[in-house]
């Protein structure tokens, strides 16, 4: 709906176009796409989510109060776009396959452990995976993750704690399995 607006943004189509092009540079786009692939585990979905987010950003550009905060603002939109995709999957009887390019099993123990961890990350609930990716891939602080996801810092800490516990358990189980004859 309506938000405080930077009067310098979006008053004319030409200015909006120029502002959008400047703010949505390749680095911002790449970061958004990478985040989406990690959350969604599917490149086609990640492309669509990134495009949806960019479209939303374009349409709401007039509501961006501070252009210097575009990346954080757009980051929240990307988070929402990914959540939308995940919810759409829940409503459709769709079996989500892991992108083979994003995780391929390997016989090597070190790589197998990494693959186990990657699979475990992908198996996390969406809420847990979201905070793990934002904290450990995007390198956001707990407070920044809280702002990005719209939940409290305490909730973020709790989700991180449980997510890491789940991941550690998965890796430990894999290690234990490999150590057996």
């Amino acid at each position: 709906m309506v938000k405080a607006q930077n009067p310098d943004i979006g008053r004319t189509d030409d200015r909006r176009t120029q502002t959008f092009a400047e703010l949505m540079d390749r680095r911002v786009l790449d970061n958004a796409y990478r985040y989406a692939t990690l959350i969604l585990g599917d490149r086609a979905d990640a492309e669509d989510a990134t495009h949806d987010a960019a479209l939303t950003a374009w349409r709401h550009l007039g509501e961006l109060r501070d252009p210097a905060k575009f990346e954080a603002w757009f980051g929240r939109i990307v988070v929402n776009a990914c959540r939308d995709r995940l919810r759409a999957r829940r409503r459709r009887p769709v079996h989500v396959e892991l992108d083979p390019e994003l995780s391929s099993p390997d016989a090597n123990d070190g790589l197998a452990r990494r693959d186990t961890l990657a699979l475990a990350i992908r198996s996390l609930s969406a809420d847990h995976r979201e905070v793990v990716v934002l904290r450990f891939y995007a390198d956001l602080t707990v407070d920044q993750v809280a702002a990005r996801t719209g939940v409290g810092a305490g909730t973020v800490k709790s989700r991180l704690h449980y997510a890491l516990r789940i991941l550690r358990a998965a890796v430990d189980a894999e290690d234990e399995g490999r150590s057996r004859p």
Partner: protein
Amino acid sequence: MKSDESFEREVRASLRASAAGSAPDQLAARIGEIPSREPSPRARGRGLRSFARLAVNLAAAAVVVIAVAALIVSRNGGNLPAGGQPTGSASLATQGASAATPAASAMPSAAASPSATLPSATPPAASTSPVPPATPSASTALLGLSPASVTFVSPNDGWVLGTGSCSGAPCAAIRRTADGGRTWAAVSAPHAAIVPGGYQGAPGISGIRFADARNGWAFGPDLWATHDGGATWARLTIAGLPADAAIVALETARGTVHAVVLDGQDYRVASSPVGADDFRLSAVRVPVGAGPVPSVQLVLSGVAGWLIENDRTVVGGARLVNGAWVAWQPPCADVVGPAFLAASSPTELAAACDVGLWGTSTGDHLYLSHDGGSRFVESGAAVPLQMAAQVASASQSVIVVGGSDATGAVLVATFDGGRTWAVVAHLGAVAIADLGFTTATQGVVITASANGTASLLMTRDGGRTWRAVGSTGG
């Protein structure tokens, strides 16, 4: 076992290894084309919030926006005489939609139109407004515009604001019906662009409301008023606010028009007698939330009113008590999802809450209040749809919710106060922009597709069936 720090490094390494490379060039190209594909939000109507929510379901629609907003006015079912027919002295409560988001977007709300006598069914006199030129056209079954907003002041008398054609170019247009939507005649419109309700980057209008046959407003983000049934329109400003302060919602009831205005980082309510253009700001402020796209819904019923702000989750609210807006704790403030409100009387409210939408989702649930919004209690089982975005209430028992399921947009209805639900309309790949009742049996909804086409649908049997009007004679 590895230390926490060591394990976190391992997690980081795993994520870096799993992350994709750069965004594909074709994606960059698609995004680069957005400004040319979406050249002017002004050409679209309101309803961004609704569309954003519905687009989740509409897998085909990667697009997240829309073009519609509408006002729906509903008669206070509790005040209706038996048989639902109005009397000359009946107080008409109106319920409708206003304010847009999310989607940006158009939100349901309510207003009451307390005319001592029913508004005239006679179309307004010839217009002197500049665009489009004034003379009302002959009535026809065709609406002849792409609807963005609709308002009724009686079962028969309504107006639709939308995008029409002026010498081949898109322009704001208004149609009036005096027979409950069966035929429509062109009347004058403000000289303004139709814009999406949630977009403030350009001046224009996205919604329309009338209090009676003479007094009406076109708004969002600009504010225009007519006091001669739409023959002439004047642009208004509100004292104490910047000239370009955005009107985000507007409803009218009991001889007063209330407008929600964005004042800096707060929403405030400005109220005026319907015939005076004398808006006074309320003291209460509802802060803008932290999410990217806040939306405000204004609901009026008789002398009561409610303002609720969602910004992904319920952020805050205000309530009209004894003629003054005061702070109010809206329903579902703790469910980690948005709430959508409707009122069928000053005491009977219905809230559709998307419980856990931004946390652990448990679906949409209906909450009812029988004391004017002081206390809400969950009613019945979960509402059988996803992402409710609109709700309308014809009475304590009859509640219609707009949202989506696997087939696309749907309307579901309960006729027993939420105990049981049924799908009453499958609307396909569209966004539901507004939903409301104009009487206990007559209701309205506007749908918008991703390609920009919009339709007005009406029910004449209390929400059980819905048919398009204005396109085939409805």
